[in-house]
Each structure stands twice: as C-alpha cells, then as structure tokens.
C-alpha cells in the first residue's frame, strides 16, 4: 500500500471532464460535438453492459435495446409526471436520479424475467429469443396510449448533461470491472469458457447467467433513461432491433470480452457515423458526385467489414487497458 491514490479510471474521467467542459466553455467545441460526446458515453454504458452478457458470460443477447427502452420509459414517465405537477421543482434533480435508478431496476426485473426461461437455450437459439423479446417490448410500447403509443413519450425534462452522463458511465465501468475481477466474475468467465466444466467445479451456472442478464439489463436501463432525458423524448423506434445490433457491433468491433474495447468501440462508431456525414458532404461538394447522406451507412458498413476481416477479434481482442484493470487484489 502506497497511501491514497485516486484510481486511474476516475482520474481519466476527471481529465475528460476538464477537457470537454473547458473546450466547450472556451467555445472550441460547439453544442453539437458535446451532444455527440454525450451520445458516445451513453453508448459506452450500453456496450459495456452488453459485453458483460455476451463477452464475459458468453451468452448471445440481441435484445439489449429492449432493456434500454424499459429504463427510458419508466424514468421518463416518472420525471414527466413530476415535472407536470411541479414545473419549478427544486427537488427536480433528486427525482431525476431516483427515476434513472428506478428505470434501471425495472429493466433488471425484466432482465430476470427474460433471463430465467431463456437461459436454458444456447447460442443462436438464445439470440433469437432475446431478439423476439426486444421486439415484444417495442411493440408493447407502441400500443400503450399512456406512454404516447407510436408518437412516443414526449415532454421529458432535459436533465441529462455531460457531467451526469459521465458520472453514470464511470459508475457503470467501475461496477462491471469490479464484478469481473472477483469471484462471481470468474464464475461468469468460466461459463463462457466451458459451461459444463464450470458446473462441475461447483458453479451454479443458471444463477450467474441470470445475474449477468440482470446487471447488464440494469445498466442498459440506466443508459435508456439518460438518453430519454437527453433527447427529451422516448420513442419506440429508437429501441428497435437495429439499435441492439449497433450496440452489438460496438462490442464486437472493440473486442468481445474487453471493456476497453467496448469503450473504444462506442466512441469510435458514434463519432464515425456522425463524422461520415461531414466527410460525405465534403466529398459531394468537391467532386460534384450525386452522393448524399445515405452513403454514410455504406462507408460505415465497409469500414466494419474491413475491421472484422483484418482484426477478427476486434480492436482490443480480450486485452484491457491498464486504466481499466485493477491490480490483482490477492497480491
């Protein structure tokens, strides 16, 4: 022990906060860029929590946005009702934080309900069930007039800002990292490596698969809540199948099983998809070719194919940056 040190991960978050906040105040970063940073951080939470299920525990979930939808709608409903009753509420922020946690817990409950029956399935079959589950959530939301139906849940107060989102991202990373580097986390890794062998060294595999689903769903719910309070709307189409696939791509491009990879994947792909907009515009301008914004997705897809061809294991593989890992507790 060498006295008190600020953990590396927290230090990095503080540095990021100082840089983004400073540049934004100085006028170097406009609101649009800060918005993309916020979106990237929310995607970090989604990717890291999906990685716990897919990368660490080795299950294949395709319905991650379903959990985010639960969090978004639960928290959004709570805050919009409170906001309507008391628009100048001084307790607004406390309500917001409570609503976000509540949204996460609701998603965790749904994670438990979906996890329990479907964990008897493996691989492709589990993927299909989770995909179906995500679509069911979306369809249900589409048909509940109380939360706006296909119009979406409107009038959600804008409580999410860079600071809040950054803190939530940091907490998600710390919790999931601490979990992985502990006895329950090793049980999850063992399930990924060889489920039968895990069972035969005494791991209650069902329990840990459900735990992974619940923790993953909790943070997806938190991310959904933050997103709803950033965009001030929760809409069924935001949480569709393609959304889940996007998060899945972030996890795979970054490296399955690597939290560092998920962070990089979330930032890179969010910035890439926005940045390509600019690039395409510039290219169209200079070459006078009749290409528009829709080409963005083509380039995006090609880049993903290139990554997967040349780095099949993702950018990071299963390696972790030393910013994220802890020193081994038993040393």
């Amino acid at each position, binding site marked *: 022990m060498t006295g008190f040190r600020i953990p590396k991960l927290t230090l990095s978050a503080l540095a990021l906060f100082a840089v983004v906040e400073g540049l934004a105040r100085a006028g170097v970063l406009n609101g649009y860029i800060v918005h993309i940073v916020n979106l990237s951080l929310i995607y970090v939470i989604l990717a890291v929590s999906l990685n716990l299920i897919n990368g660490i525990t080795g299950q294949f979930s395709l319905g991650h946005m379903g959990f985010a939808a639960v969090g978004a709608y639960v928290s959004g409903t709570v805050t919009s009702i409170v906001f309507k009753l008391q628009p100048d509420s001084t307790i607004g922020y406390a309500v917001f934080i409570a609503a976000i946690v509540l949204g996460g817990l609701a998603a965790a409950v749904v994670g438990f309900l979906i996890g329990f029956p479907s964990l008897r399935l493996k691989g492709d079959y589990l993927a299909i069930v989770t995909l179906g589950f995500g679509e069911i959530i979306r369809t249900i939301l589409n048909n509940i007039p109380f939360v706006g139906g296909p119009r979406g849940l409107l009038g959600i107060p804008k409580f999410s800002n860079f600071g809040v989102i950054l803190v939530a991202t940091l907490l998600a990373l*710390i919790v999931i990292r601490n979990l992985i580097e502990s*006895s329950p986390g090793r*049980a999850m890794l063992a399930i990924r490596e060889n489920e039968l062998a895990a069972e035969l*060294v005494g791991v209650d595999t069902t329990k840990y698969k459900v735990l992974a689903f619940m923790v993953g769903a909790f943070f997806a719910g938190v991310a959904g809540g933050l997103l709803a309070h950033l965009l001030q709307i929760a809409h069924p189409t935001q949480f569709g199948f393609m959304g889940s696939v996007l998060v899945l791509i972030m996890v795979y491009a970054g490296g399955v099983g690597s939290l560092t990879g998920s962070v990089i994947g979330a930032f890179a792909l969010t910035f890439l998809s926005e940045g390509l907009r600019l690039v395409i515009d510039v290219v169209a301008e200079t070459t006078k070719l009749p290409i528009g914004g829709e080409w963005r997705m083509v380039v995006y897809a090609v880049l993903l194919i290139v990554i997967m061809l040349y780095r099949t294991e993702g950018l990071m593989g299963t390696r972790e940056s030393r910013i994220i890992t802890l020193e081994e507790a038993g*040393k």
Partner: protein
Amino acid sequence: MSALLRVEKMTHRFGGLRAVSDFNVEVPEGAIYGLIGPNGSGKTTTFNLITGIYVPSEGKVLFEGKEITGKKPFKIVQSGVARTFQNLRIFGSLSVLDNIKVAHHFRTKTGFFRSVLRTPGFKREEIAVREEAMSLLTLMRLEGRAKEQAKNLPYGELRRLEIARALATKPKLLLLDEPAAGMNPKEVHELMELIVRVRDEFKVTIFLIEHHMKVVKGICERVKVIDFGETIAEGNPDEVCRDPKVLEAYLGKRGA
C-alpha cells in the same frame, strides 16, 4: 471400511440403447478404484451419471450414505465429488491461476455487492483464495505457469491443471476420466506417483477410468470391468486380467 460411493442397480438408456446396465459399485473410503473396459463400453457415461450430467433411468447413487441421484451437477460437486474429463475441459483463455480460483468460487462468501464495493472482507478472501490456489499449483509443479493463459500449456501440464482444479473444490471423492491418455511413459510414471500422493495428502478417494494397464495394475487396489454397459468382472487387477471374459472383451474370442 465403509463405502464412500455406492451405486445401486444403475441403468441408463439413450433411446433404445442401454448404455449402462444394472451397474453396482461400492468404492470404499481411501481406495484407488479402477473402472476399465473397451471403447464404448459405458465408462464415461457411468461417470456422467454419478456426477449428475445425466440422470439415471433407474437405480440410485449414494454418496456418504446420502442419495445424490438426480441432483444438479454443481450441487453434487459442492457435496464433495469432483472430476476431470477425458477430453480436457480447461478454461482456455483464463490464466492458469484463475482456472484454480474458479473452483474455489462456491466456498467464497463474497457475493455481488461485496465484490463491487471491494470491502476489506472481499480483499482478505481474495488473498486467501490466491494463496490456496498457488499452493495447489506448486504441488502440481505448475507454479511457474500461474499467469499464463491456460490454453498455451502443453498437454501433460493441462492434465495436471485439471486435476489441480478438481482438487481445489476440496472433494472427498475424485473421479479421473483417463488421466494418462496421451501421456508418454515418463509422464505416466509421474502421474501414478501423483495420484497416490494426492490420495494420501488430500485424503481423497479415487475412482478412475483408465486404458493404460500399467496404471491400473500399478495403483488400483480393485478394478471393475464393463463391456456394452454390463459388468463382466470385478476384483484385484491381476485376477481381473486373467479373467477369460475380460480377455474376450478386449481381444475377441479365440478362433473367432
């Protein structure tokens, strides 16, 4: 000597095939007991039935006098029955040390919240688990490999790692499924010494499947021979090897 493991009239069918038929065994505490038979005779199936991977169609499995038939595999392990696999089942991309630590998992008290909050109790437990795991690795002469990814180890060391991992669950009964498979004569010799040492130092009873007759004759006190799921002989290794039924099962009928 009382029987630590007792299997009574165990039968298992896969569809119409009787993979194991009316299997009875009593493995006394402290013994090294062998199970042999030609390929496909139902030996691994027998182990799978004892460890709960399959539930027997008929019959009972009793461990320390208590029935464990039909219990989930992880419960059976927790009650004191550990095993290794014929085709290695190592946690390949985990470190050698973590492979052992996983097997300590069910005895650790730290759950989700204590792990996430990194309480002092969590840290103490991690240190204790690490020390125990390292001492097991030292016994298996794998201490130098602790930090390596398990899948990079040579075959013989993987076999030892699997035995170490099984021992980390602190079993009373250890089932070894062809521990000498794929080993060279020197490694086989070391393995035999290791098995005897494990039995004496850890006070575990050993029930093993083996094809190497040298191993069986060298260390087993008693052997059971099965063929097509049926028990064809039982006794001390030398007697069994002279048994005409056993010779027939392995070599075929004279003149056939």
